[in-house]
C-alpha cells in the first residue's frame, strides 16, 4: 500500500516539476543588427488581431518597411487574439512581433516579461519617446516596464444627429451632464404605451461603447490606490457620484421621475438594439439621437449611412468638472516583442517603423479611421480630417484624456464592476455602498493572487 502511495507521489512530483520548468531567463543584452555588408535574409512573423478589410489595409504597411530593410520579409497573420499569443509564448515558439487590441493585458504582459521590456533597445538606440503624446506612453507601460509601443488609438466622444437637434430647436451639443439630461429629455420619444420609441441617449453600461470604463473616465474616477495594490472603487467618491447620477438620469429621462419605470423601459429598449458593427447600429438607424462612441464610427457612417446628417463633440462632463470639457477616454492598439522571439533585433526595427513612421500611421488613420499616435502624424498635412474626425484628434491631445490605471489582473476589474453596474441600472442591486465594497473586495482578492 505504501509503495502505491509513493508511486502516486512520485508521479505528482514529476508532473509538478514538468509544469514549473517553463520560466525563461532574460537573455543577453541586445546587439543591433549590422547595417553594413551583406545581410542574411530574415523573415519576421507578425501576429495581430486585425481581420477582414482592416487586415488587408494593415498588410499594405509592410511594403515600405521592406523597401527600407530589403533583407527582412514580414509574414503577417491576422485574426490572432491574446490567448493564442500567450499559448505560443508558453510553447517557446512565439512570433517575432505581436499586436493586441486588448490594452488591459498590458499589466500581465509587462509584469510577467511575456512581452519584452523595450527599455534596453530604446536606451541603446536613443529612441525618442517624446514623439508620442504622454497619454499614449501612460497606457503602454506598467510597473516600470515599457513593454509595448502604441500603434494607433481610439478616442471616445459624443455623436449627435443634427437633423433631430434642429427639429427640437437645439443649436449646440451639451457640454455638461445636466445639459445632456435636458437635451436627452427633449429628444426622447415615447410610444402610446409608454415604451421608448427613440432615446435621446442611452446611459446604460453595456450598451455599445457606454461602459464603466468610458463613463468612469468622464467622472475622473480612480480604479486603484496610488501604489496600485488596492481597488479604489469603494473609496473614490467619483464612483458613487457616477452611479447616483446614472440612477437620477434614468428616472428623469425615461421614467418621468420614477427610477424603476425608467429602468424597465430602458431594459426593453436596449434589448432591441441593432448590432453595433452593422447598418442596424442604433445611431445610424436614428433609433437614438445621441450616442457615446469611438472615432471609428465616422468610417462606418461614411460607408453604411452616408446620408446621415451628424456631428461629433467631446462627451459632456459632470457639472463640477466643467473645466475638463474636451477630455475623453482614449486607448488603443499596442505592439511588442514577445519573449522568445527568434529575431528580436529585426523585430525592434519593425516595431519602431510601425510606431513612428508618419506615412504608415497616416495611411492607417485615413483608411481604418483610428487616431494616429505620434505628434508628427497628428500634425501631418496628409491626414484626411473631416470635422467629425477632428473632434477625436482633439480629444486625444487633451491633457485630461487618459486610459485607466493598469493592473496585473487585466480587464477582470472592469468585468467585476460591469456585473454590478448591470444589476444597479436594472434596479436589482439597490445598496450602492455594499455593492461597491464587494466589487472592491473581489478585485483586491485577484490583485493579491496576481502579485
Amino acid at each position, binding site marked *: 500500500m505504501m509503495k502505491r502511495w509513493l508511486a502516486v507521489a512520485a508521479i505528482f512530483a514529476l508532473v509538478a516539476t514538468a509544469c514549473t520548468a517553463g520560466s525563461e531567463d532574460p537573455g543577453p543584452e541586445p546587439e543591433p543588427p549590422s547595417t553594413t555588408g551583406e545581410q542574411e535574409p530574415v523573415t519576421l512573423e507578425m501576429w495581430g488581431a486585425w481581420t477582414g478589410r482592416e487586415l488587408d489595409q494593415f498588410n499594405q504597411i509592410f511594403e515600405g518597411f521592406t523597401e527600407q530593410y530589403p533583407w527582412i520579409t514580414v509574414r503577417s497573420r491576422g485574426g490572432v487574439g491574446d490567448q493564442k499569443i500567450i499559448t505560443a509564448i508558453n510553447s517557446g515558439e512565439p512570433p517575432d512581433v505581436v499586436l493586441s*487590441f486588448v490594452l488591459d493585458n498590458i499589466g500581465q504582459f509587462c509584469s510577467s516579461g511575456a512581452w519584452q521590456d523595450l527599455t534596453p533597445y530604446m536606451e541603446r538606440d536613443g529612441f525618442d519617446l517624446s514623439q508620442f503624446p504622454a497619454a499614449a506612453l501612460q497606457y503602454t507601460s506598467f510597473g516600470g516596464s515599457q513593454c509595448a509601443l502604441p500603434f494607433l488609438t481610439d478616442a471616445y466622444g459624443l455623436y449627435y444627429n443634427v437633423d433631430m437637434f434642429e427639429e427640437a430647436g437645439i443649436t449646440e451639443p451639451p457640454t455638461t451632464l445636466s445639459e445632456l439630461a435636458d437635451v436627452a429629455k427633449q429628444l426622447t420619444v415615447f410610444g402610446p404605451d409608454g415604451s421608448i420609441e427613440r432615446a435621446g441617449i442611452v446611459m446604460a453600461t453595456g450598451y455599445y461603447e457606454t461602459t464603466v470604463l468610458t463613463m468612469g473616465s468622464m467622472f475622473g474616477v480612480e480604479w486603484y490606490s496610488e501604489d496600485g495594490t488596492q481597488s479604489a472603487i469603494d473609496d473614490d467618491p467619483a464612483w458613487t457620484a457616477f452611479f447616483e447620477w446614472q440612477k437620477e438620469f434614468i428616472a428623469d429621462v425615461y421614467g418621468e421621475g420614477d427610477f424603476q419605470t425608467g429602468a424597465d423601459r430602458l431594459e426593453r429598449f436596449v*434589448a*432591441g438594439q441593432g448590432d453595433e458593427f452593422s447598418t442596424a447600429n442604433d445611431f445610424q438607424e436614428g433609433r437614438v439621437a445621441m450616442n457615446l462612441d469611438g472615432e471609428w464610427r465616422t468610417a462606418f457612417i461614411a460607408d453604411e449611412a452616408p446620408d446621415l446628417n451628424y456631428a461629433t463633440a467631446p462627451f459632456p462632463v459632470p457639472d463640477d468638472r466643467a473645466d475638463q470639457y474636451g477630455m475623453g477616454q482614449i486607448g488603443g492598439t499596442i505592439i511588442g516583442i514577445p519573449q522568445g522571439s527568434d529575431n528580436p533585433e529585426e523585430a525592434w526595427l519593425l516595431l519602431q517603423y510601425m510606431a513612428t513612421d508618419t506615412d504608415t500611421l497616416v495611411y492607417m488613420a485615413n483608411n481604418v479611421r483610428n487616431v494616429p499616435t505620434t505628434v508628427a502624424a497628428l500634425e501631418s498635412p496628409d491626414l484626411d480630417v473631416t470635422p467629425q474626425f477632428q473632434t477625436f484628434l482633439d480629444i486625444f491631445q487633451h491633457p485630461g484624456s487618459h486610459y485607466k490605471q493598469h493592473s496585473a489582473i487585466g*480587464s477582470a476589474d472592469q468585468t467585476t464592476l460591469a456585473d454590478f453596474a448591470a*444589476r444597479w441600472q436594472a434596479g436589482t442591486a439597490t445598496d450602492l455602498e455594499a455593492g461597491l465594497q464587494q466589487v472592491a473586495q473581489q478585485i483586491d482578492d485577484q490583485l493579491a*493572487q496576481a502579485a
Partner: protein
Amino acid sequence: MGIAAGAGVIRRRPRRRNLKRGLTILLFMSPWIAGFCFLILYPMLSSLYFSFTKYALLSAPEWIGLENYRLLFTRDPFFWLAIRNTVWIIAVGVPLRIAFAIFTAWLLTRPQRGSRVYRTLYFLPSMAPPAAAALAFVVVFNPRFGPVNQILGAFGVDEPPLWFYGPGSSKWGLVLLALWGVGDAMIIFLAGLLNVPRQLYEAADIEGASGWQKFRHITLPMISPVIFFSLLIGVIYGFQLFTQAYVVALAVSGSSVADAAQGLGTPQGSMLFFSVYLFEQGFLSFRMGYASALAWVLFFIAMVCTLALIKGSRRWVHYQGGGFR
C-alpha cells in the same frame, strides 16, 4: 531429482506463458494506455497541481496550497452565481428535455405512413452545430426583429418576453434551444418504445387499463433504463454547458471574441454557467490556477451527482431479465 526437475518445468512454463500473454495484451492495449496517460491522466494531474498554485499562464506556477479553494468557496460571488445558474438549467432543462423526447418519440410511433420522413425531420435539428443553432436562436428570438415576438405581438401580447436579452427569460431561451435539438434523445426513446413487448399492452387491454395506466405501469418501467441513461448524460452535459451559453452571451452583449470577458454572463449574469466561468477565469483572465480549482470542484460535484443517480436508480430503473443493477 527427476521429479523435482519436472516439477520445476511445470512451474516455469505457465509463468513464461502468462508473461508472454500479458505482454501481448499490453501491446494491444498500448495505444489506449498511451492516449490515456498523455491525454487524460497527465492533464488531470497537471490541473490538480495547478489548482494549488497561483498560475497566470505567463509566469511559472507558485504553490499557494488551498488558497484558490478558500477564495472560491468564501469570497467569490460569481462562483455561487455560476452554481445557481447551472443547477437551474439542469433541474429545469433536463427533465423537460426527457419529457419532450418521450412525447416526440411516442408521436413518431403513431404514423403508419411516412414515419421515416417524420423521424428524419425531427432528428435533423440535433445535427446542427451548437454554435450555429445558438446564433440562429438569438436572431429568431430577438425582441425587436425576431419572428417569435412579432407573432406574439400579432396575437396581442403587449410585452412579449425579452428572451436572451432579459435576465428572467434568457435561460428559458436555452431550454427551448435544447428542446428544439431533442432529436438525439428522441431517437433513443423511440428505440426504447418500439422495444416494449406488445403482449404487455394486450394483457393490459384485457384487464381494462386506461391509456394513462398503460403508460404509467408498462411504458415507463420498460423504458426506465433509457430514461436513466438520458438523465445521467443530461446532468453531466448540463454541468459542462458552454458553447450555447458562450455564443448567446457574446451575441447579446455585442462583445467581440477579443473582449469576450466583458460579455460573458450577459444579461446580468443570468448566463454565467459553471463552465463559462471556468473558461473566463482560465483563458480570459489568465487565472489558470483558480480555473483549475474550479474544474476540480466541477469534477467533484458531477461525480457525486452521477454516483447519487446510479445509487438512486436501483429503486426505479427496471431491466428486462434482471440485467446490471
